[in-house]
């Protein structure tokens, strides 16, 4: 019992520290930038205020939401597939979204429905389609084996990458430039519209997953075990795969493919708070949000006054990490 109290306390401490870190991040990260400014300087001039409220703060909110979402989806995918290498990116879902978006750019269709552009729609469609393909392929033979799924995901990623190249080949210079710039990923937004679109969906998924936290603990021990403990594994898989592919599709459309967040964050947070999803699903997204803000701040400042796409930073951190995890898993 004492141990339990201690672990609850240490978990609360961790979440407390993470929240504090996030608040600090939100107030310090916007001050770092090309227009060197302290709080006082910033609020002296109208230009300073404008930079802070219309550029920096929306960008930070957006980065936080994207990091939050990618981390929480990473956690959910890893539990469902019983593999800590599973993320929307390793499964090819983001590639599906990217292919959709690239096709949308090439097609030149410019429809806007409820604030969603063609790129968003195509990207969401691409993500859902990918999940469906993976699901059907993996289900056709003796259930959703984790290895089958990861391999299927890698194959689909490769296939979609070559299809994206094919679309590039057909595109003219302007289109190609827009595609490449978009594929690099970026969190530069003006105003709050992206964040406001994301908030309801992210909140919905967050609450949905929290309610399924114990079921996710059990599912991570294998489908058969979970079924025998009373978890309705297939409806859980369906629910999570569908809502997360919608979210991934939207994120890919808004920010381009930003990889590895869903891989690094859940792993690190699991080392700190343990594998219990009741804790993991709270701590991982908070940390992921702040982490992406710092990656973005780095991207903004490292080659100042120019900006690096944030996807390059996360990939440079995440690539080696992925290989390290792979080697570690092999050894176990």
């Amino acid at each position, binding site marked *: 019992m004492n141990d339990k109290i201690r672990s609850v306390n240490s978990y609360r401490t961790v979440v407390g520290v993470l929240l504090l870190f996030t608040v600090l991040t939100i107030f310090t990260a916007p001050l770092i930038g090309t227009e060197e400014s302290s709080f006082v300087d910033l609020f002296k001039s109208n230009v300073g205020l404008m930079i802070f409220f219309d550029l920096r703060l929306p960008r930070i909110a957006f980065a936080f939401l994207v990091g939050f979402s990618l981390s929480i989806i990473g956690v959910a995918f890893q539990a469902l597939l019983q*593999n800590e290498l599973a993320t929307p990116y390793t499964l090819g879902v983001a590639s599906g979204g990217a292919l959709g978006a690239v096709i949308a750019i090439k097609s030149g269709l410019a429809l806007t429905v409820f604030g969603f552009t063609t790129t968003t729609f195509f990207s969401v469609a691409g993500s859902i389609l990918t999940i469906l393909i993976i699901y059907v392929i993996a289900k056709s033979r003796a259930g959703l084996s984790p290895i089958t799924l990861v391999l299927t995901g890698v194959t689909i990623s490769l296939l979609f990458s070559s299809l994206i190249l094919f679309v590039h080949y057909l595109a003219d210079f302007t289109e190609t430039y827009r595609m490449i710039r978009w594929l690099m990923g970026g969190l530069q937004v003006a105003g709050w519209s992206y964040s406001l679109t994301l908030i309801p969906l992210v909140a919905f998924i967050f609450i949905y997953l929290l309610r399924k936290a114990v079921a996710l603990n059990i599912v991570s021990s294998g489908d058969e075990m979970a079924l*025998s403990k009373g978890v*309705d594994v297939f409806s859980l898989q369906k629910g999570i795969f569908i809502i997360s592919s919608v979210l991934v599709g939207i994120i890919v459309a808004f920010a381009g493919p930003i990889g590895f967040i869903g891989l690094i964050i859940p792993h690190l947070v699991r080392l700190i708070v343990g594998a219990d999803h009741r804790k993991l699903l709270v701590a991982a997204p908070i940390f992921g949000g702040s982490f992406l803000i710092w990656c973005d701040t780095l991207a903004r400042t490292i080659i100042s006054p120019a900006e690096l796409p944030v996807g390059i930073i996360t990939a440079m951190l995440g690539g080696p990490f992925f290989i390290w995890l792979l080697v570690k898993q092999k050894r176990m």
Partner: protein
Amino acid sequence: MLEIKNLNFSYGKNAILKDINFSAKAGEFISIIGPNGAGKSTLIKLIDGILHAENSDILLDGELIRHYSRKQLAQKIAYLPQESKFAFSFTVRDVVMMGRFPYLKGVNLYTAEDIHIVKEMMGLMEVDQFAHRNFNELSGGEKQRVLIASALAQQPRIILLDEPTSALDLHHQIAIYHVLKKLQREQNLTIIVVTHDINLAAQYCERITLLGNGTVIRDGEPKNVLQFNLLQETFGVKVYIDINPLTDSLYILPYE
């Protein structure tokens, strides 16, 4: 309480089980034996609704099992898969606690009753002394005991075990059967074990079901099932059968 009528099951075009009739009463301790590929594991997975057979009648307390929700079924039947590995590090207590999932309502909080039952089952299976250790780091025998404790936390009426002793040494094999016997006696639990260890089955179970090629070859007391012509036909080896004078149970030795 458990009744299976004319059960057929196939993976694609391969018929795994053909026209199986099988039933189990409360408090029975039954072993299912048979060669590899006879359909033993498939049968118990069907009983727990992990696999589904079209148009099959598997009845639990007079009701088709596919009419039960997953949680309702988990309150009545517990199942131990042949192999269990957790992708992440859970403590022994966490794993036993998972057995209370079928009783969890809405929010993710366990009641005092859940915690009490988990404590009791950990005591019963003597795993409480390593309650806070990482499950994945335990030995095979310890893992089995934890998984049985977790299954018992479901407070089931039937427990299905798929080769629970195949990875264990002699001491731990006996220990597992000993515990199962105790559960049968004290809790009137129905126990169905799939096993390759015919001698342990003969020693501990009142009833053995011999499966071969997807059908029930013989079902009954050990002395009616462990007959050398039957075993020779089913397994394709000759066997020597004798009685262990210390336990009065049959044992077999395969040769040729």
